[in-house]
C-alpha cells in the first residue's frame, strides 16, 4: 500500500446553524499540509456551504466563506458537488463560489476546482476513497 491515502471530506450540513461546516473546513486547511490525496464532497444541505454572497455582520459571527475560495492555494483541486442536491434546492453552478486552483501540469493555468457530479458518480467517489471524514 502506498503512503498516500485518498481522504474524502463529506459535508452534508448547512453552514451557520451548527459549527460542523466551519470546523470541517479547519480540518481541511490543516490536512492540506500532509501531502495526501484530498477531495471534498458537498451534498444535501452541504451544498449551501458554497452558495456565494454570505454577509454575517448582522448575525455577528465570523464570515468564513473566504476560506473556501482560498482552498486552491492549499492545492485542493477536487471539490465535488452533487447535482441532485443543487437541483432540489433550486441552485446551479452559477450560484456557487468561484473556487480555482493552478494546474502545474498545464503551465499553471487557473482551473475551477468545482466538479458537478451526479448522485451515482458521487457514490462511486465515496467508494473509491480510503478515509471518509464526515462533518
Amino acid at each position, binding site marked *: 500500500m502506498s503512503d498516500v491515502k485518498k481522504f474524502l471530506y463529506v459535508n452534508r450540513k448547512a453552514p*451557520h*446553524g*451548527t*459549527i460542523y461546516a466551519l470546523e470541517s473546513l479547519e480540518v481541511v486547511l490543516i490536512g492540506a499540509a500532509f501531502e495526501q490525496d484530498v477531495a471534498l464532497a458537498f451534498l444535501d444541505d452541504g451544498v449551501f456551504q458554497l452558495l456565494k454572497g454570505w454577509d454575517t455582520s448582522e*448575525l*455577528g*459571527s*465570523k464570515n468564513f466563506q473566504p476560506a473556501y475560495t482560498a482552498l486552491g492555494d492549499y492545492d485542493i483541486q477536487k471539490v465535488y458537488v452533487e447535482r441532485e442536491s443543487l437541483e432540489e434546492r433550486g441552485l446551479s453552478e452559477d450560484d456557487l463560489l468561484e473556487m480555482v486552483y493552478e494546474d502545474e501540469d498545464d503551465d499553471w493555468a487557473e482551473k475551477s476546482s468545482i466538479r458537478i457530479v451526479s448522485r451515482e458518480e458521487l457514490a462511486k467517489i465515496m467508494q473509491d476513497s480510503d478515509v471518509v471524514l464526515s462533518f
Partner: protein
Amino acid sequence: MKLGIVVLEGPYQHEAADTAYNFAVAALEKGHEVFRVFFYHDGVNNATRLMVPPQDDRHIQQRWSELAEKHNLDLVVCVAAAQRRGILDEDEQGRHGKDANNIAPGFRISGLGQLIEAGIQCDRLVFFGD
C-alpha cells in the same frame, strides 16, 4: 413587556446560542424588560469563563457577561445541567470537592424552579435550542 429567554445549546457549536443573545440585545434596545435568561441543557456551557475564541471571532461568554452588567440581567445556569457538564461556581466546587471552578461573572447557578418562575412571571417565554 417582561420577557424570559431559555438557551438550550452551547456556544459556537449551535447557532441557538447566538440567536438568543441577539434577541436579548434587541429586546433590551426596544425597552423591554428581560426578566431572566435561563441556561439549560448544553446552554450552560455559555457560562464558562475559560473559553478563548479566536481574536477575530465573537466572545460568546464575554458578551453575555457584559450585557448582564450593563442591564443588570439575571443570567441563571441550571445547577443539574451544569453539574453534568462541568460548569461550577465556588460553592459547587466546594460541595463536590473539585479543585477549580469556571463560571463567568454575571452568571449564577440555581435550580430549575427559576425556569418555572420565569414562565409564571414573564409575559412571554422564548426558547432557543436544537
